[in-house]
């Protein structure tokens, strides 16, 4: 299977702190890869580097064979990469429905209204379609971000804790949406603290600690990795 995303020696420091330190990995088409790690391990910074929010100090990001390392966010998004943010980043003065329309401004604008209605139904947001996005509960805001991703019909999706604070029933809805998109060859990179969820949906896991990748493999492989145990639980007491 071909790699749709290749990351080579990617690094970024803030002040003297290496947030991401020489990260290298690749993701195949239609693969779902989970990224886990303790707080401050560099997961969200990695997403920001992949999406052009931050510029890398060194290293390369290849998206569908194109070098996008220095490209601005909107060009990376137009290349087919969609994302959600660690804290929901909504258009708070627009209604839920218009948030979905806004996600289609670079794509099928004329088909956006009918597509938005389908997404509202799918994500159980139809009842709040006219509400301002800023007035939604935390869980509903995450669903709306997921809805915007669906509206973009992306080729690769970066989800940053998309299920955090979402009702278990709606979490299943999100998982279903992810699986449906994957069936259409969409690739996923998912940051998630909920190991049960990652076990449920991810083909492969990447574990980060202090800006580096400390382990990579299937869920079973990484949960038995001593470095992962150390990253999560600390150095064993002698």
């Amino acid at each position, binding site marked *: 299977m071909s790699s749709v995303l290749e990351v080579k020696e990617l690094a970024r420091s803030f002040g003297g702190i290496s947030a991401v330190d020489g990260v290298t990995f690749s993701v195949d088409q239609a693969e779902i890869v989970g990224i886990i790690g303790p707080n401050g391990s560099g997961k969200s910074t990695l997403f920001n580097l992949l999406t052009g929010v931050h510029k890398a100090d060194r290293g390369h990001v290849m998206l569908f064979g194109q070098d996008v390392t220095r490209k601005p966010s909107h060009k990376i998004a*137009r290349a087919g990469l969609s994302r959600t*943010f660690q804290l929901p980043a909504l258009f708070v*003065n627009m209604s839920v429905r218009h948030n979905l329309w806004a996600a289609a401004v670079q794509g099928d604008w004329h088909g956006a209204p009918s597509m938005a209605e389908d997404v509202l139904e799918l994500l159980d947001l139809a009842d709040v379609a006219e509400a301002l996005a800023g007035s939604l509960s935390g869980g509903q805001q995450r669903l709306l971000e997921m809805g915007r991703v669906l509206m973009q019909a992306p080729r690769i999706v970066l989800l940053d804790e998309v299920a955090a604070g979402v009702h278990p029933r709606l979490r299943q809805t999100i998982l279903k949406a992810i699986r449906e998109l994957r069936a259409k060859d969409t690739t996923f990179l998912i940051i998630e603290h909920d190991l049960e969820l990652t076990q449920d949906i991810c083909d492969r896991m990447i574990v980060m600690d202090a800006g580096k990748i400390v382990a990579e493999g299937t869920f079973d492989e990484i949960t038995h990795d001593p470095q992962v145990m150390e990253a999560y639980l600390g150095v064993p007491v002698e």
Partner: protein
Amino acid sequence: MTVTTFASRANTIRVAGLAALIVVGATLPLWTTPYWIRIATGVALWAGLALSWNVIGGYAGYISFGHVAFFGIGSYTTAILMQPQYHWPFFATLPVAAVIATVFAATAGWPALRLTGAYFAIATWALAEAVRELTTVSDFTGGSGGLTLPVKSSSSFFYYVMLITVVLSYILCYFLLERSRFGYRVKAVRDNEAAARAQGIDATRVKIEAFMLSAAIPAVLGGINAYWITFINPNSVLNTIITDQMVVMVLVGGLGHAWGPAFGAAALYLINEQFLTSFGSSTSYIAMVGIIVMLVVLFLPDGVVSLWGRTRRTRLVRQLLGRAADEFHPRRTTDDASTTARKGASR
């Protein structure tokens, strides 16, 4: 009575009100005095200026305190081109005024729109002051003495030209900002720039386009105003108080609302005229405007138009004011998108 019946009746009232407004507007010079024609022309002028500020301030979320620069550029373009040595026809000067203002907006906006909040406000204020100073010291603008234009003594002519220009501007902005994908791009950038970029929106370009649109309208109105008042100088068409009035009118009418600025402009212009007539000066008017602004921001953050419908943008005024405050006192946050949006000043 059903909800549908209520909605239908509300629509009928709305259509009837609009029809009455059109009839009154179209026939006004036929049945009223020159004084009221002059007042109506002034209302139209300020409604257009408030609209133009609303494009960049309300829709794009960038508080400009230099918008008078575009009004002045338009005024001087028309005034210079209508001087005896050039002798351009009045209507030919208006597109030139619009083009010069939009090019100026694009040139100045490219660096200025990388700033956010209070920094952008200060930059635009400085820009307008620079234009004013240049106009004061330049010979071709007549310096501080200003320029005189040919006299056309027809109040109906200026009323209709002003009214048609403003109505067309409102219609254009309504379709561009409320009904087109451009409008969604602009509003997305206003609400969350990082998220907008993540949707594939070229935020820098969108902001410049919005700034250009907001510059073209006051330039054309400035040209019409210059011909109407027949004499301009830096103090009359590049005075900071003109921008202040635009801001206040939009805040009172409804920030980011399609027609709210027209209401704010009409209300404040008429109140100002009443104060001038009653007291002979604007001092008390300025004090009263201060009180009105405080009351509106505190109790009607969506502006007066929110009294007639559901509150839609309660966050907008607070968001813009909060963004400006954050420039000076940044809050600690882990929110990538909001942090990035606030980092615009250093981008």
